[in-house]
């Protein structure tokens, strides 16, 4: 069974139709890249899958592990193993990083009837992951994303992913705003998370991140539809032609 099965998904934001029929199948163990220019609907797809209010699915269906994902509340999607790395992580002064993440982890564990972790067990778990993302321990006692640099915020997203261990991770433009060193750290964190049980969907404008997180499949999203799918080479081709050239060819090829 596919992990994620998106069928003819249509979605609107503030009454405007953005996704116009997306089809996508993701199996466990796979890494998919969804590429597209600004306004193509990449972030809308990521947010609809995570259940963000105001991102409204108006047609089609999404099955996650065979279950109707769109019918689930956002917190239940997370508890079922769906994770969205935000393009713009929210700053929340007054809520400590460690406190937040422990609350999240234990909420997920309760849902799965697993015993909650106490403070000691939690710290044992996070200490490894903190190092993986090149973060220091002081980072855990800071307020959630409060005053973080762009790079720190993105690393924090991947750090959260490493602690929560989702089955399906959707990275929404995690590469944007990262310098090359930060990108390598983030990519390394993601690569460490690759496993036969887990799928990763990388949503990106640029090919660059795919040099470090090598995808199994690449999809090109244009105007709310996936217009072409292929392997790694499709991303390299896009880099040469750009979206404009691709768009022209896609238009010419259309019936």
């Amino acid at each position, binding site marked *: 069974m596919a992990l994620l099965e998106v069928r003819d998904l249509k979605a609107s934001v503030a009454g405007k139709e953005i996704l116009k029929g997306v089809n996508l199948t993701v199996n466990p163990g796979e890494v998919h890249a969804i590429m597209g220019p600004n306004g193509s609907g990449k972030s809308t797809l990521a947010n609809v899958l995570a259940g963000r*209010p105001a991102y409204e699915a108006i047609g089609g269906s999404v099955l996650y592990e065979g279950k109707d994902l769109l019918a689930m509340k956002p*917190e239940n999607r997370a508890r079922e193993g769906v994770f969205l790395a935000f393009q713009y992580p929210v700053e*929340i002064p007054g809520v400590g990083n460690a406190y937040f993440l422990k*609350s999240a982890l234990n909420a997920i564990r309760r849902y799965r009837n697993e015993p909650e972790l106490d403070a000691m067990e939690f710290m044992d778990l996070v200490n490894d992951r903190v190092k993986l993302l090149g973060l220091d321990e002081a980072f855990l006692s800071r307020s959630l994303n409060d005053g973080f640099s762009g790079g720190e915020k993105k690393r924090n997203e991947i750090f959260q992913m490493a602690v929560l261990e989702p089955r399906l991770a959707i990275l929404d433009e995690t590469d944007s705003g990262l310098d090359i060193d930060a990108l390598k750290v983030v990519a390394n964190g993601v690569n460490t998370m690759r496993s036969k049980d887990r799928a990763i969907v990388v949503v990106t404008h640029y090919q660059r991140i795919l040099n470090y997180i090598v995808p199994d499949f690449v999809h090109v999203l244009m105007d709310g539809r996936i217009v072409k799918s292929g392997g790694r080479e499709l991303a390299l081709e896009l880099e040469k032609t750009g979206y404009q050239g691709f768009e022209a060819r896609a238009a010419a090829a259309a019936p």
Partner: protein
Amino acid sequence: MAAPDPRGQYLADFGSLEKEFYASEPEWLRTLRATALARFQEVGFPSQKEELWRHTNVAPIAKQRFLPAVRLQTDGVSPDRVRPVRFSQFEGSELVFVNGHYAPRLSALKDLPPGVRVGSLAKMLAWDARIAEPYLGRYAKVEANPFVALNTAFLQDGAFIEVPKGAIVEHPIHVLFVSTFHPTPTVSYPRNLIVVGEGAQATVTESYVGLDEGTYFTNPVTEAVVGPAGRLDHYKLQRESEKAFHVGALQVHQDRASVVSDNSLSFGGALVRNDVKTWFAGEGAEVALYGLYATHGTQHMDSHTLIDHAAPACTSRELYKGILDGHSRAVFYGNIVVHQGAQKTNAMQTNKNLLLSKDALADSIPGLQILANDVKCKHGSTTGQLDEAAIFYLRSRGIDPQAARAMLTYAFVREVVDQVKVAAMHAVLSIQLASRLPYADVVREGL
């Protein structure tokens, strides 16, 4: 039909109390009372036509006949009843007042550095009134506020704290005012005087607590005088009965290079007004004013602050936060006045309100009056609901929406809560918050 003017009643009360209690007082104190009474008789209770009272209608106080609490018996309260509202695991001195009367039985005075005086103001006035004469009524001006006039005319008892030059009082001094139920609503007029000498340091916490859910009126005034390079950390925790009225004022007077902080934490009362004012009399002084008000039901809470930058190179920081629920209403009115010649003033004033209910109403009126040209002043105000983007972020990680709301609500107040450095008060505050914030049980760990 117009309501009968309550001034006549206060005049009559004064007349009988004067014969009984005030006649033996020194001349200066009797003059102070008479002047204050005359002022109150002249202006009466403020109307909403006055700018400083525009948002608060004190008619419920004016209409109610209150028996002066000085006439109540004082020995009706057992230590067991007071214990739950005292500070626990507290190493400092604690002065307890019941319905405005000093209760030596319930109070505990610890060892203090030589020359430091801590005790009942009334006792001190009876013993040697000259000690208070240079201070009492010199700072909290009766012209500025009819309720200060009322308190000054009827002032009864409170804490007298004097820390001489260079002395450092290590542990906080807690002044606890409890009110009990009485079939006839009563009024008490607590009056505190805090004098911190040059280079001296003290921490004073005031608590006002209703032991019963009765109607009564507390009208306290605190004057604090801080000498050159002195330091005062002052706290006021207001947990009156939710049927009670509380109209209080703090007036601080700061000499050069002194450092003062005030934390005003307000939870109780049906109708509450609190004025905090500080006057910079010498250069290089600093003040930090923090406030937290949490309202629910039909409570009305009004916080007024005034910072007078009357000397150059002083710094003021102000942060007041409110959480409003139910049909409650809260007012923040802040004013920073930078006087002519007060160059190099640095002032920042912030008020933030969080509305937990559609029916709650916050008025936020920050203000600056700048009469100098070389200053750094900033003020800001926000009122809103919890950030939906933040709620979604927490939910997207598996956190229950109610827990997300509780976390964000607590995060909102934390900035002020973290300023409470007195552990025993912090503990009381945490319990108070847990009883007040929605879904507090889910964030117990964070409290």
